[in-house]
């Protein structure tokens, strides 16, 4: 920003004078219940948590201000949900005990109000690999939008615009209109055989912003866990499971491993790609264009093709403990002696195809919740002795 021999200095942002803490207003309604001499313990909690003065980092502001983002406090968000905890001792005799415990929670997140001129919108759905993210009152944070993937055009003659009942739309010359990409550019892209087929929601023969639908969000509808504990004499067997239900994950790793548009390694799924007119498959053709051209097609637009159900149940721990009892301990002059074996992350039941369906939510609401297949939780077996002197 210098000019001639003068070093330029300019402000890097707008001075923030009205930042403050978020205010959280929380109402809880719940009960603790103990029945049958403490054999059943039930805890239930319903909450409504409203966040006022929502901190909105990097809020987009009109560039007429000379800047493009600002951190502000404005808006309201609500989390409503319920938590349940149950502890049940099913059998309790002299040297045998069988307990189960279950916890479950549900949470609904909704943005109640945003500043009038506020809009979070990221992602250009006209580009491959990008999803639209927007936050608007009435929606949860973290929702994403994209196209509906309908497979692959088997033949070029299939790539025609259709009306609401599925009949081809005819042009002025009496021939069916070809499907086009509604992108901004010198040449309109026309879909051909082997290209990914997307739902033309408004039947205008163009795939564009208007064909984008809500695909889901990362927030699970239910989360929780539970396990059983069996003890017989000195032996205790303890298990614990966790689950999440109803989260939607964008499997970005799969996207990159199936897009066939670069030099990245690809998965075996690409073996079934479309290769010639008439092939019926759900993996589009490989489209790598030579040097000098920039046409990579639109085979991996942000669509539900890469969105997967992230529900899972994970067998988190199983542990077997043997406690050597007081008599033995006194004999060898220790306070307490235990040996145990514990297994962690033993198994995960899920339909999710990536490494780990337990994807951490992004740090900011305007970041797309994608799974980059980081190292999954390791399966571990721990063998231990616990001695207390």
């Amino acid at each position, binding site marked *: 920003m210098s000019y001639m021999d003068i070093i330029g200095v300019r402000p890097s942002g707008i001075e923030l004078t009205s930042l403050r803490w978020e205010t959280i207003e929380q109402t809880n309604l719940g009960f603790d219940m103990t029945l049958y001499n403490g054999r059943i313990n039930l805890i239930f909690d319903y909450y409504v948590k409203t966040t006022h003065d929502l901190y909105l980092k990097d809020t987009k502001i009109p560039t007429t201000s000379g800047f493009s983002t*600002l951190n502000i406090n404005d808006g309201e968000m609500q989390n409503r949900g319920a938590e349940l905890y149950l502890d049940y001792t099913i059998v309790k005799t002299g040297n045998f005990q069988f307990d189960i415990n279950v916890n479950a929670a549900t949470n609904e997140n909704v943005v109640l109000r945003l500043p009038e001129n506020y809009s979070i919108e990221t992602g250009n759905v006209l580009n491959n690999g990008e999803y639209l993210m927007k936050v608007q009152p009435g929606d949860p944070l973290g929702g994403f939008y994209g196209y509906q993937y309908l497979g692959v055009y088997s033949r070029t003659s299939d790539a025609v615009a259709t009306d609401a009942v599925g009949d081809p739309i005819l042009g002025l010359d009496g021939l069916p209109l070809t499907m086009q990409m509604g992108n901004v550019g010198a040449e309109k892209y026309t879909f051909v055989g082997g290209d990914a087929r997307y739902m033309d929601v408004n039947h205008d023969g163009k795939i564009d912003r208007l064909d984008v639908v809500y695909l889901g969000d990362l927030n699970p509808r239910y989360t929780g866990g539970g396990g059983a504990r069996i003890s017989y004499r000195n032996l205790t067997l303890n298990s614990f499971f966790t689950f999440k239900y109803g989260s939607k994950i964008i499997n970005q790793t799969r996207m990159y491993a199936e897009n066939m548009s670069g030099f990245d390694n690809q998965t075996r799924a690409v073996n079934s790609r479309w290769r010639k007119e008439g092939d019926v498959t759900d993996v589009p053709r490989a489209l790598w264009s030579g040097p000098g051209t920039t046409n990579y097609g639109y085979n991996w637009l942000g669509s539900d093709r890469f969105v997967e159900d992230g529900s899972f149940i994970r067998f988190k721990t199983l542990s077997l403990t043997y406690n050597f009892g007081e008599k033995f301990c006194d004999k060898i002059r220790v306070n307490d002696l235990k040996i145990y074996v514990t297994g962690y992350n033993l198994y995960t039941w899920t339909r999710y195809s990536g490494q780990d369906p337990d994807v951490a939510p992004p740090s900011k609401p305007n970041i797309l919740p994608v799974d980059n297949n980081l190292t999954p939780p390791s399966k571990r077996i721990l063998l231990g002795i616990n001695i207390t002197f």
Partner: protein
Amino acid sequence: MKKLLVDRKIIAILMLASFFFSSCENWLDIAPEKDLIKDNFWKKADDANSALAAVYGSLRDVSLENFIWGECRADIAVNMPGNYTPISGSDIDPENDAINWSKYYRTINLANTLLYYSGEVLENDMSFTQKMKDGIDAEALFIRSLSYFYLVRLWKEVPLILNPSISDTSNLYYAKSTEAVIIKQIISDLLIAKDKAYTTEFLNDLEYFKGRANQYSIMTLLADVYLWNQQYEKCIECCDYVISSGLYSLQPKDTWFEIYNPCNSVEGIFELQCRDDGTTNQTNPIYTGIPTLINLTNGQAAFGKGPKYVALFPDNSDKRYCNGKTSLWKYVGLNYDENLRRSVVSERDANVIYYRYADILLMKAEALNELGRVAEAQSFVTQTAERAGMLPVTGITDQTEMRNIILDERAKEFALEGKRWFDLLRKAKMNGFQNKRELGDLLVNLADAKSQALLKSKVNDTMMYYLPIPYDELKRNKNLKQNPFYER
């Protein structure tokens, strides 16, 4: 028991530590080390100068846009780069990323900020004189006016913002102002700036004299604004002011190419100075922004010769044709007649020439002609024509004919200098768009063959000569209303 003693020691150490560190009670107020904070700025003359340099730096950043928009939809150049391609064929989508005014407004905000705080520097630093403050204020007003002049010619109606965005309590959500209001503001700002500005103080330092706005560059911009606003008498006054200063003249015929290489010729009135020193990032954005510009040999280069360019130069007689070399020769040639390129460094440090004396002569010619003083106009057009080795313009009595001659002369003189579209639009919009038909026909001819039929029905809407409000800005600011032509 021993264990307990250790614990006590630790507690004692912690208490001691808390005693030492308690002096940091204001840790929330610690200023970031590397960044300047506002409270420490605006204290010294250097601060004002640094802020001014940033305003010029920001103008340099937007110079590429200024250059492209001046040619994009016009007929002198074809093969617009990237996202400008569809726009050059009147296929204009508000979502096109090329349509973006943020750099203009960044410049404007930096100018507004400087204007707001220059008084504070005056109070804080005795060495910062009133004259220095006035000079800097005038430069900021000039750049702000120039930015708004571009905005108003490109978008017609834009937010008019005269206050800096200095805190999050500033108004950020401005609605559009009309063209008339903006033009009025530009004129009154420039009249104020003119009285405050430096005149010949930097005459001995050519870079400062040509590169920083002074009274003459301000009057030249004002002439351009008056011409746009059809205030021809006023335009002539401004031109005469610059002419009578005696500080400028046309670069002689034999050395005319020195206007572009090495720049800062006797003709230059406002040349944004560029440098290629490898450290301060002051290269000419026209080179860094359009890589294909340099690679002129591959046949795909941006800014090929447009239909008008070909028609204007039927043969080599006009020096400005540079013997048929590329239309961009003035940006890359060592001189006009030899087939030698400049070194890469001296390409990148070529100035962005906003105004030069030829502009004054031709603006005056245009203003005279519009006032019916056709014969007088002739002598001014003749000056630039003769300098290019052409015959004098004589025997013209018809105003319309003369208008076209002046327009063509401007096209030849300023080919690929980012002025053509504004010249065409200025002519079209005269007296309530009396000449819109010609511009409409031109836009249809420049469009893609397939879309010409559809375009024909649209070019009567004069709002299509202006750009849509960028899609993203409409999202960010609900007080903005789209240009009605682009509303779907």
